[in-house]
């Protein structure tokens, strides 16, 4: 077993340092949470965590599964309304969230089955149609969607009998969930499945002739990614105590796409970095008022043009340059 790992690692098969990076990210987030335990910064930190979870789900669909889908915000909304529905019917926090994950997973399975033969843009358009229908349906008044898609008074998250009322308390829950999801993603990326997923994306037809389970992998990545989106929707709903259909429109859908592209498709860390950019930069530029949109657009253009592999690619390039300039640290 050890020999296999060494040889495989030499072959560049399994990226190292992932667990250490995860630990560093958790520590950094924890330090940030201690310095900004109240006010809008704490709120932004939690928003970053929730968006990171949703973006990580989209990473599963787009970067791992190789399919572009607009349905991630639909899944977030479905997760949110499902958790709100069960909450109003007296189900506990964990039961509500579990129900949200299961319902979104089933919905994703149904959508993927209906759009089974749709490839590329047609699949994307099909999922866009689902999202548009979702916006209309969720905006109606019903026992499931409340009044015009707005539901208030949803219970706080409860973990081990303790109600998490403040942003600082919710932070730990969101961090734990994100860390667990990153860990599950790392395990997939450090496994033979990562290789099969690469083949599914890069040579779909040839993969089928090789016996790679193309259909099963596409379905699993779509369902998993969508369920993670549903989980993000459920968490944000309990955290805010409110759900409104406007929060899950096409803008956020494009935002999630931006997070993953901007962060970098090559790594799951890209989703987290992209989400940080998406949440933090408008906030940092908010003092510039009327120029904010222009500056934000220019910044995006610059990053995409100079570093097409995203912010994670930018860090990689800089680290490599540093190693070249300092031969002492270059890998032998």
């Amino acid at each position, binding site marked *: 077993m050890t020999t296999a790992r060494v040889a495989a690692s030499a072959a560049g098969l399994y990226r190292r340092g992932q667990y250490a990076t995860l630990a560093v990210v958790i520590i950094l987030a924890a330090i940030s949470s201690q310095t900004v335990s109240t006010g809008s910064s704490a709120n932004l930190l939690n928003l970053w965590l929730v968006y990171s979870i949703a973006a990580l789900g989209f990473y599963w669909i787009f970067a791992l599964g190789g399919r572009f889908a607009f349905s991630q915000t639909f899944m977030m909304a479905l997760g949110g309304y499902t958790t709100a529905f069960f909450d109003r019917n007296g189900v506990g926090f964990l039961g509500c969230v579990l129900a949200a994950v299961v319902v979104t997973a089933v919905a994703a399975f149904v959508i993927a089955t209906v759009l089974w033969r749709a490839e590329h843009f047609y699949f994307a358009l099909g999922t866009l149609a689902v999202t548009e229908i979702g916006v209309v349906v969720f905006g109606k008044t019903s026992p499931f969607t409340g009044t015009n898609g707005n539901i208030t008074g949803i219970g706080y998250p409860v973990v081990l009998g303790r109600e998490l009322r403040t942003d600082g308390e919710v932070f730990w829950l969101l961090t734990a969930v994100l860390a667990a999801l990153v860990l599950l993603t790392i395990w997939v990326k450090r496994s*033979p499945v990562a290789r099969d997923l690469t083949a599914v994306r890069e040579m779909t037809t040839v993969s089928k002739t090789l016996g790679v389970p193309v259909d099963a992998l596409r379905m699993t990545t779509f369902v998993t990614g969508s369920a993670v989106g549903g989980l993000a929707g459920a968490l944000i709903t309990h955290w805010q105590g409110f759900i409104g259909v406007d929060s899950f429109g096409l803008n956020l859908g494009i935002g999630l796409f931006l997070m993953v592209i901007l962060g970098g498709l090559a790594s799951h860390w890209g989703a987290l970095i992209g989400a940080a950019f998406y949440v933090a930069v408008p906030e940092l530029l908010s003092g510039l008022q009327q120029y904010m949109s222009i500056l934000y657009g220019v910044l995006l253009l610059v990053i995409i043009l100079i570093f097409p592999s995203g912010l994670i690619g930018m860090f990689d390039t800089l680290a490599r340059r540093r190693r070249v300039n300092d031969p002492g640290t270059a890998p032998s």
Partner: protein
Amino acid sequence: MTPTTDLEVRNLSVRFGGVTAVDDVSFEIAPGAIVGLIGPNGSGKTTVLNALTGVVPARGSLTVGGQPITFSRPSQSRRARMIRVFQAPQLCPELSCVENVMLGAAESAGRTIMSAWLRRPTMWRRESDRLADASRQLRRVGLGGFEARAARELTYGEQRLLELARALGAAPRLLMLDEPSAGLNDAETRALRNLLMQIRNEGIAILVVDHKIDFIDALCDRILVLETGRLIAQGTPSDVWSDRRVMDAYLGVAHDA
């Protein structure tokens, strides 16, 4: 290994809209046989391979080892261990050579997302077996020591050998090769012929499409000749080359009315 291949194709037809690319073609391949599939450009050779691999819609019947195989189902062709090497190398350029070979591994256990989450010790054990086998296949085609190199760093000829290693790692009973000698020099072509002879000695049948007549002549037990989608001749090399229709198809001589 005991010879097991017994492939029978009956009335194979492939149509693309109004165009008939392959028209009512029937042939058999005996265990361990090397069969050449030749014909002018556009005669339907690659389409026959596509049909056998299940990547184009086809009509007719196909049995392998007495078991019927449904056309247009790549997974069924794969399960029957009919493995294809493409005309232009079809590899994942960013993956290493050993990973590219492992993609085709016959052993598929421990390659699911669930096993990546829940059964990691078993997964590593299976992976270890696949890795050892993939390295063996690389050495076999002359790419020993290439394990860790990215496929994109290989020359065209090496990439073709890499794809052959991947096909061998899939434990084929029928190996389908699409113009394997294209782009190879004389020495490389000779080496390839010797390798294919070794492979057939293990009981693996080979169906080879190629334009180099010398290569086909020296390699094949039987030759199938296609012209505009129809099978115009089949038999031993000497039978085929003495066939008038084959000479016409290749030399462009018209029959007298």
